[in-house]
């Protein structure tokens, strides 16, 4: 990660190694920017791993029948793809990587509230990741349950689910500690003048996310512990022959995992909210509405979990109540979308790469959100449950939403951290390929799902061949886009022209300090006198 080319640039925190050398300057550093970069590179690594697994899945599905993998291998592949993408990429992705990198700077703090705890979080994440990878090759081999670990199969399968659950537990604990750290940081470390209503909306979204992380993740902890106990000591709490009830597992799992989708999406929304006003040169429309809608999503999102269980045999009353509650979450989400569009309206827009990714986000996330309503309505959900429609839907939200936001954040903030700029034209090409490939890849999945193709099978009926082949071709286009994007951005960050302190003309605090920022973020004591989107007073 250290760069070698000699440069006239100030190297800021890159030079402050704390007396440690080589890798030690990273994995033992308590500087939030170094920890942020650790998280960034680890999550990026797992994104690439997960993407390769996804491409492998698509390759197998290019034609009917078993072509490249055995059915068992396919089961392991999609489980691994899901686990890696969810627990190792998308949940820590934006909050732990970009949150660590910019949140303390945005509020004018010199670090997070508990820097050593912050480092511990990364270590726990790394240990969890190593355990998850170990589970692939030990005692029974790669888990084949899907990332949801549903009983009774997860208790009976001979693959190494036990170790995988321990890994998930540890990674969850790491997320809790990050959330806790951020909450205390945002409450206690704001610079003078940084009132609650002057906090940049990215930080607001992290604040809402951190609450969900702290309050929901323990339930995941106990759920995977129960699976572990079920397998190791035979506690039988979900085993009907012993008085247990498997549906209770599903409840516990989704009590965490639905709020978890807000852990995934809220920080992405925060990134977009920070980007749009800067490139429209206009204050964000409805600052308070956006901040409050984050909290509303976090709150309402905690009581809708059972919409994943419409066909589980739960009571009809419960199905209807959860369906209604699910529709309510659409309101604060739509508030955000309308606010973004209203911010763009009549702005003087400069179509730079971060904004392009943000626009894709709005488009793809809206499709994901609207198809979510199809799933939220009980009657239609019974029809499309567990089909490729669902797979298409959640990729639109998670990948089209958060995944694109992650890449938007790379293009927006990494020049600040590295002090160098990438080639903007190449970034636009990468963006176009990626967006186009994405739509081909997942739109086809939704269509074939509507036609009745179930998810999690290595094989399909010949009549589904056309859409599957189109989808696989889309996955190749998307992969080309990703390659262009990554090659371009890293070449730029290591060799590009100096970016300057404020390449985009942002008004929030991270653009007022130097690029890269110094060790404790500011050479002076920051004093905040205006809002984060006040471009008239904010930019010199």
């Amino acid at each position, binding site marked *: 990660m250290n760069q070698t080319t000699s440069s006239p640039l100030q190297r800021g925190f890159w030079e402050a190694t704390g007396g440690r050398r080589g890798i030690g300057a990273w994995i033992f550093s308590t500087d939030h920017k170094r920890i942020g970069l650790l998280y960034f590179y680890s999550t990026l690594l797992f994104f690439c791993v997960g993407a390769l697994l996804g491409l492998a899945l698509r390759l197998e599905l290019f034609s009917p029948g078993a072509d490249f993998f055995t059915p068992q291998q396919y089961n392991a592949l999609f489980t691994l793809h899901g686990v890696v993408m969810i627990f190792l990429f998308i949940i820590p992705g934006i909050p732990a990587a970009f949150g660590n990198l910019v949140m303390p700077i945005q509020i004018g*703090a*010199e670090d997070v*509230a*508990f820097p050593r*705890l912050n480092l511990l979080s990364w270590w726990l994440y790394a240990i969890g990741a190593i355990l998850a990878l170990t589970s692939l090759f030990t005692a029974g081999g790669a888990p084949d349950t899907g990332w949801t670990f549903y009983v009774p199969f997860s208790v009976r399968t001979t693959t190494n689910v036990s170790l995988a659950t321990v890994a998930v537990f540890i990674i969850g604990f790491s997320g*809790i500690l990050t959330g*806790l*750290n951020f*909450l*205390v940081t945002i*409450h*206690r*470390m*704001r610079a*003078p003048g*940084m009132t609650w209503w002057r906090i940049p909306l990215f930080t607001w979204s992290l604040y809402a996310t951190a609450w969900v992380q*702290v*309050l*929901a*993740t*323990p*339930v995941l*902890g*106990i*759920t995977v*512990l*129960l699976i572990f*106990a079920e397998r190791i*000591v*035979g*506690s*039988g*709490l979900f085993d009907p022959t*012993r*008085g*247990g*009830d498997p549906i*209770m597992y599903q*409840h*516990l799992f989704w*009590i965490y995992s639905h709020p978890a989708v807000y852990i995934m999406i809220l920080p992405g929304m925060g990134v977009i909210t920070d980007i749009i006003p800067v490139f429209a040169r206009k204050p964000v429309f409805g600052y308070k509405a956006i901040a409050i809608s984050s909290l509303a999503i976090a709150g309402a999102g905690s009581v809708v979990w059972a919409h994943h269980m419409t066909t589980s045999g739960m009571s009809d009353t419960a199905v209807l109540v959860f369906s209604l509650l699910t529709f309510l979450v659409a309101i604060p989400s739509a508030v955000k979308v309308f606010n973004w569009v209203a911010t763009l309206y009549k702005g003087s827009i400069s179509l730079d790469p971060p904004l392009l990714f943000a626009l894709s986000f709005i488009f793809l996330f809206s499709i994901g959100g609207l198809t979510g309503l199809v799933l939220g309505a009980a009657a239609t959900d019974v029809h499309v449950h567990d089909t490729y429609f669902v797979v298409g839907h959640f990729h639109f939200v998670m990948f089209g939403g958060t995944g694109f936001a992650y890449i938007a954040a790379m293009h927006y903030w990494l020049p600040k951290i590295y002090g160098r700029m990438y080639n903007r034209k190449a970034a636009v090409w990468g963006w176009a390929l990626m967006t186009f490939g994405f739509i081909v890849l997942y739109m086809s999945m939704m269509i074939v799902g509507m036609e009745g193709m179930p998810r999690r099978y290595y094989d399909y009926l010949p009549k589904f061949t056309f859409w599957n082949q189109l989808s696989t071709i889309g996955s190749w286009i998307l992969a080309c886009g990703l390659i262009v994007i990554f090659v371009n951005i890293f070449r730029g960050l290591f060799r590009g022209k100096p970016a300057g302190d404020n390449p985009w003309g942002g008004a929030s605090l991270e653009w007022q300090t130097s690029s890269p920022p110094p060790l*404790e973020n500011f050479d002076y*004591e920051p004093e905040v006198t205006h809002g984060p989107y006040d471009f008239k007073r904010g930019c010199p």
Partner: protein
Amino acid sequence: MSETTHAEHPKDYSGAKLGMWLFLFTEVLLFGGLFILYAVYLQRYPEGFKLGGDQLNVWFGGGNTLVLLTSSLSVAMAITALQRGRVRQAANLVGVTVIMALWFLVNKFFEWSAKIHHGIYPSSGHLKEMPGGEQVFFNIYYLTTGLHGIHVLVGMFVMTWVLILIRKGKVNPDDYVTLENAGLYWHLVDLIWIFIFPLYYLIL
């Protein structure tokens, strides 16, 4: 709002406490999952839960309740003592807490051993022959008290660590937030037991 300066990093007590309270929330929710299961299964098998509860030894449970309550008192007194500058006394009181925690675990050990001796433990053949309600009762009983036991064990280590810090003077009358936070954790462990005791031992 705290104003940190670049030159010095004063310790932020309110921040440290806020962090601890958030952590306690997560603990409550961790046990919350088990309490939800308890509630659902109790509603489904009131008979089985009653029969199961009758087989638990109230004396063990009640005794341990007293032990934990006393230990909560001793931590609270330790904090007051340290605040008033009585370092020696504070250290002794934390020591008492550690001993109480150990006592609790020893009690628990005998209680579990007796049950296991009678063939009642999660995967035993004897338990599997019992009706569903009782099986579920004992399985949750073992998981909940087991998880709680682990917390007592962790608390014991934390208290020992704080004891060492007091001896070394790192936790002292001017800087005692570590002891306060350890105390908060200990009260929570106690509080969870206060719920476990009636739910499992005194069930009607």
